[in-house]
């Protein structure tokens, strides 16, 4: 149950992720982006934030950093790689996940709780979660998921749309789409489902007094895969 969180210049959810992973029993290490080797890990997390100040395009510079080669090798061997928010943007920029996160349709930075529908439980991230709708937090300016029609077909045909923005009842509709994302897509898998990129932050929902506990459900389930 070893995890590693990669820190890029401008990451700002790296410590929250560290706290969350440790709370649920992971032995976590923080890894600097300029390192070339990953510590022995069962899970690699690319955290949220604003790596390299979002210069050029969100995640584009981080996607070329030294450590990313090791992350790509790890992912291609089937290791679990989780990208949250900026981490999701980095995963699309490296080509590990298809598509791109564009600026929100309404040109606003959005910071609020949202509901997401869990579309796929045939994977290690959501396999034993009883709930179909999770309340999670989003905080982003570029979360408007877009991909080509061929890529969208590939995602849907292979059950790779992990989570979609919805309302409290789990209805996926335009009203519950916060940022203009194509078909309310909030997170996707790669074909092998070992890589998950999603805009919502489970690490911000791990305390029943401060936020909510749906993030706790996510991390507990993730850990159960390694028991």
């Amino acid at each position, binding site marked *: 149950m070893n995890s590693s969180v990669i820190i890029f210049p401008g990451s700002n959810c790296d410590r929250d992720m560290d706290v969350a992973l440790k709370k649920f029993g992971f032995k976590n290490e923080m890894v600097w982006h300029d390192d070339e080797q990953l510590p022995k890990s069962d899970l690699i997390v690319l955290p949220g934030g604003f790596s390299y100040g979002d210069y*050029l*395009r969100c995640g584009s510079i981080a996607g070329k950093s030294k450590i990313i080669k090791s992350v790509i090798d790890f992912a291609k061997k089937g290791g679990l790689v989780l990208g949250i928010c900026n981490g999701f943007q980095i995963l699309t920029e490296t080509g590990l996940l298809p598509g791109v996160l564009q600026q929100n349709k309404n040109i606003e930075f959005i910071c609020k709780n949202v509901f997401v529908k869990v579309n796929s439980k045939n994977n290690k991230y959501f396999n034993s979660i009883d709930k179909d709708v999770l309340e999670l937090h989003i905080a982003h300016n570029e979360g408007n998921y*877009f*991909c080509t029609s061929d890529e969208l077909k590939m995602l849907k045909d292979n059950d790779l749309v992990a989570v979609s923005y919805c309302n409290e009842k789990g209805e996926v509709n335009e009203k519950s789409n916060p940022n203009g994302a194509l078909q309310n897509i909030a997170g996707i898998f790669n074909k092998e489902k070992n890589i998950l990129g999603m805009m919502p932050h489970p690490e911000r929902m791990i305390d029943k007094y401060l936020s909510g506990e749906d993030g706790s459900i996510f991390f507990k389930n993730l850990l159960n895969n390694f028991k």
Partner: protein
Amino acid sequence: MKIKVVVTLKNGVLDPQGKAIQQTLNGMGFSSVNEVRQGKFFEVDVNEKDEAKAKIKVEDMCKKLLANLVIENFEIL
């Protein structure tokens, strides 16, 4: 040698900043503005004397970093 590159969003890709600029121009009285598309301009100084060779290098840079070909086109000027 300095090579100039323009990166633009592909047709059909939503450009909310361009839309906001267009609406602002319309509001300022430039009522003839139908659409604005915002892009990026790069000037890349390449250590290369042969222009053709320099442009081949910059094209590779565009494909690998400067443009995201899912949503953007690039043009080397």
